[in-house]
């Protein structure tokens, strides 16, 4: 009853035999033990499971693992640069207290990186609208907005000073 899939996750080739109904988020958490990607709902609305799939932010509970065969997936564990520093978005969340319990945070960070990719200089409303698909129950979003604005500025500065590829996308 299992089906075979192979894909690239955080730069590494992985292959597995899975139950066909396995969701991508379950595959990441249960097969690969990448538990940084969280499950907060069962209707595709909280965004805690957001990952990058072929460079796009997707809710990994809305993708069957089988559909992700042959793709490239980046999770929260895959965005920290090799030198061990935090990604500018992670650093900004810490600096601006954009997280409390931390449960929505990986999905929020992944969605925010994607948002800044499409809106390099977002204003407050763009951020609020752009993060509408990610629920946070702790922060009231105030500091998340500040963090994303600050990260966008840092990422723009980084782009202009060094043309290196972003790991996440």
């Amino acid at each position: 009853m299992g089906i075979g899939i192979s894909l690239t996750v955080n730069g590494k080739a992985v292959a597995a035999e899975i139950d066909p109904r396995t969701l991508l988020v379950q595959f990441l958490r249960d097969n690969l033990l990448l538990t940084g990607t969280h499950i907060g709902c069962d209707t595709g609305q909280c965004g805690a499971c957001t990952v990058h799939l072929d460079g796009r932010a997707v809710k990994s509970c809305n993708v069957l693992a089988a559909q992700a065969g042959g793709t490239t997936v980046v999770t929260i564990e895959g965005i920290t640069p090799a030198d061990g520093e935090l990604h500018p978005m992670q650093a900004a969340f810490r600096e601006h207290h954009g997280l409390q319990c931390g449960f929505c945070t990986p999905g929020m960070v992944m969605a925010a990186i994607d948002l800044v990719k499409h809106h390099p200089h977002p204003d407050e409303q763009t951020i609020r609208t752009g993060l509408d698909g990610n629920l946070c129950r702790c922060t009231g979003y105030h500091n998340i907005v500040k963090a994303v604005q600050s990260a966008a500025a840092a990422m723009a500065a980084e782009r202009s000073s060094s043309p290196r590829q972003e790991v996440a996308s």
Partner: protein
Amino acid sequence: MSEAVIGKSVRRKEDKRFLTGSGQYTDDVTLPRQTCAYFLRSPHAHAVIRKIDTAAAQAAPGVVAVFTGDDLAAAKVGGLPCGWLITDVNGQPMKEPPHPPLAQGKVRYVGDTVACVIAETVYQAKDAAELIDVDYEVLPAVVRPDDAIKPGAPAVHDIAPDNVCYVWSHGDKVATDQAFEHAAHVTKLDFINNRLIPNAIEPRAAVAQYSRAEDSYTLHVANQNPHVERLLMTAFVLGLPEHKVRVIAPDVGGGFGSKIYLYAEETVITWASKQVGRPIKWTAERSESFLSDAHGRDHVTHAELALDNNGKFLAMRVRTTANLGAYLSTFASCIPTILYATLLAGQYTTPAIHCEVTGVFTNTSPVDAYRGAGRPEAAFVVERLVAAAARELGIDQADLRRRNFITEFPYQTPVGLTYDAGNFNATLDEAVKLADVAGFEMRRQEAERRGKLRGLGYSCYIEACGLAPSNLAGQLGARAGLFEAGEVRVHPTGSVTVFTGSHSHGQGHETTFAQVVADRLGIAVDSVDIVHGDTGRIPFGMGTYGSRSLAVGGAAIMKALDKIIAKGSKIAAHLLEAAEADIEYDHGTFRVAGTDRGKTIAEVAFAAYVPHNYPLGELEPGLDESAFYDPTNFTYPAGSHICEVEIDPETGVTRVVNFTAVDDFGRIINPMIVEGQVHGGLAQGIGQALLENGVYDTDSGQLVTGTYMDYAMPRADDLPSFKVDTQMTPCTHNPLGVKGCGEAGAIGAPPAVINAVIDALAPRGVTHIEMPATPERVWRALQTAKPSRAKAA
């Protein structure tokens, strides 16, 4: 290291693991040979279980075991207990119906646990659960508290045929009634405090493991108070000795009250882990969270305020019917009573108050503490009454409040509390300034030109945090202590590990508590680690709820630190050949007063653990001290919140355009964390006022708002950025002078928002709106209102 760390926005120690996906939440725990549990839940709000046939499920692929209520009864597993005994107006104990972890004979709400299937995978467990044949005889259900007490309503429990758990009252009825007789003006309101569903983003989860070798259990559980969980589960339900059960609440993804309680699921899998001889994991799906997490609020209230000719409050009279749900959750009984009626004085000198509360059973999920727990309900009563009175009398909203503020402390309220400190004028003055109330009229006119209605709403709330003292609470029916415990372990080379009984599930204890310790010991914040959430490591503590962690848990740590310094002084006196009385502790060094001779705490600690030159005859080795702290009083955070809304009369859509919160939390250790707590509370408070509503269908008893499609959680674009500031009057009775800040926003915001909505709609003749003030409700109110009834405020 002597840099001040109190009052500094130190960035959080816990953030790196959360930001890199390295947190360890309960569902991230995977044990060898682990199985998965799935709970079959009742699809009916009220039904007799005639028969359960589990044979097909038992035989399904991957199934390890299937358990029902009969299995638990045969094993003499008890019911889930309630932690607070309320005594009714006739001196009788409240009705306490049994709450079996798996239903026995009857189901009482949609989501009630019926059977537990344990299988190799969660899919196999779910597939097998579908094969369980339950023969239900469906009964009529009742879901609203006011319906439940009507004659002829279906009885949820045989022991409470009228569905009344208790009728309880508080305050001086005679004095209150007399004051109303002589009042120049009486303001009356009827309203519902809407049912809320807590929705921590991490669903509840548990992993239970039984060790045959040690005959002991380890339970990982998403919980706010692991020792309370263990005590209730072992002593009251499973009959296990506490030392054989270790409860670990690891990283917990938000609680807001909903993870205080002992729930059926973790109880069943703990018991079952021994039966099946393998670890068991259970994680709620969000739909299950909606159905089975304890909900909050759900009051129906009639409230009256009596005033004299000068706008002085003479008396308040409140009648509330509180929905307790189908069973008594752990602290359900005390929320609409002890934590509600005692707060009805608010910030005012109202001399006579009487409140009567009828707690009722319904066919709904149990109702218990949710962020604020009784105090938001009380603040809503007080601040809606005050706002309505000001409007009716044509007195300025801020002015009427100022006329009635308590200005002298300590202040004994007529509802049992003694406020130790506060400055209500200061918070209101600052809020008025920060909210630019002076410029509101111009903004209102500008909005009007765009066809929009603007309104300004005030809320001057008070809350009581750090429920205490234990002996008084015991007299009021508490079945638990209310102290907190802390242990400070100075390691031989001077770094420090602190063990606290309180628990962080977002509040940032690992940082704030480290600041407290670093400040007292004069060492670096990075040299201090905080350990919480594991009964195998920490002293017996009561956990985190009611904004108590720093006021109670921090105080326990301060007491332990005092012991560390006292013992360190003795060791230093020996090492320095000085009199103990001459030793002073100053920024990490024990000094001989008036000299430059001293020993650092690291040197003293080393001497304590390598006691070669040590007064062994008089002093034990080691530098590790613990303390328990039982507060003498509550703390009383208070504040003024001002909300400005803009309403589109064509659609009824209400937007919060400005929200200002000026709070008095006493001394503040980490302003960044405190502001974050306020922001989160405001979001939940605004959510209650404008968006969130837990709705059961009155005929079928089905939860209508059972997903994020139907239950409107506040999202980023529903909220504004907030204006937040603080004023400071220190708490007088705890060593840190702190009061607690976790619930303030959820308490202050709902009345501020609704008062703003009414202010905006008043020119169109609207005087009342229920929460949540959805576009539909606002639009309907505008359609049916009569403009001529409007009065300027």
